[in-house]
């Protein structure tokens, strides 16, 4: 198959396994055509309760298999059509995670640094509001579903009103 050098190479992965930023960066760097800039975002599990709280903390990520991959692909496609991106990787973990573990990686390659930064922010903003993932926090024997934040919706909506 002939390869179109102008295509944005999109890698989407939804997995329970951890990922390695160095490997993902190397892959994108060599796949993308003559990139001048690569922006990476990594989201990690924070200690979500104060010190002194007892019991093991964990975060369990549920998702909607099938729709998740479709939603992430759609977000990546929109980013690639809005900015001149040469490659983009989205990895999101599911299952049980503990504090300091990695949850999500977004890597964006472009010949322009502003496009790489904007593309990565755009993908993160829409990932938070359109990709079917749900977090449940557990601390000791207390479990509760994380509630979505209005600020995430505000961040996503800013892209509708701005050109970049």
């Amino acid at each position: 198959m002939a390869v179109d050098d102008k295509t944005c190479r999109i890698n989407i992965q939804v997995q329970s396994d951890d990922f390695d930023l160095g490997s993902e960066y190397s892959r994108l760097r060599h796949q993308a055509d003559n990139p001048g800039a690569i922006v990476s975002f990594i989201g990690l599990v924070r200690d979500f309760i104060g010190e002194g709280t007892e019991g093991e903390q964990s975060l369990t990520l549920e998702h909607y298999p099938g729709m998740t991959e479709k939603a992430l692909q759609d977000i990546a496609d929109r980013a690639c059509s809005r900015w001149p991106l040469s490659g983009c990787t989205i990895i999101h973990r599911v299952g049980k995670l503990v504090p300091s573990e990695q949850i999500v990686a977004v890597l964006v390659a472009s010949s322009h640094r502003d496009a790489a930064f904007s593309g990565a922010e755009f993908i993160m903003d829409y990932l938070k509001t359109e990709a079917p993932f749900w977090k449940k926090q557990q601390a000791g024997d207390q479990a509760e579903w994380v509630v979505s934040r209005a600020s995430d919706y505000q961040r996503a909506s800013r892209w509708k009103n701005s050109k970049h």
Partner: protein
Amino acid sequence: MLTVRYFASLREALGCEEENITLEQKDNVTVSDLVGLLSARGEPWDVLQDTGQVLVAVNQSICQRTQPLHGDEEVAFFPPMTGG
């Protein structure tokens, strides 16, 4: 036959992960009609009417409640996403 799926806190609140529903009427049916049918079961099912707390996807794409249903779709209900 519709496949109806529930996720996350909604799945837990309803105590249901997936069910099959056959629409009696096949024409001019929308997601809203399905919600009406399910809400008629009473608590806790009436939470489905809350459009701020419950989102809908038909065939794995987010949609409005005005979305038509032909009777063979996968319909999913879930709370606002909290990934990332």
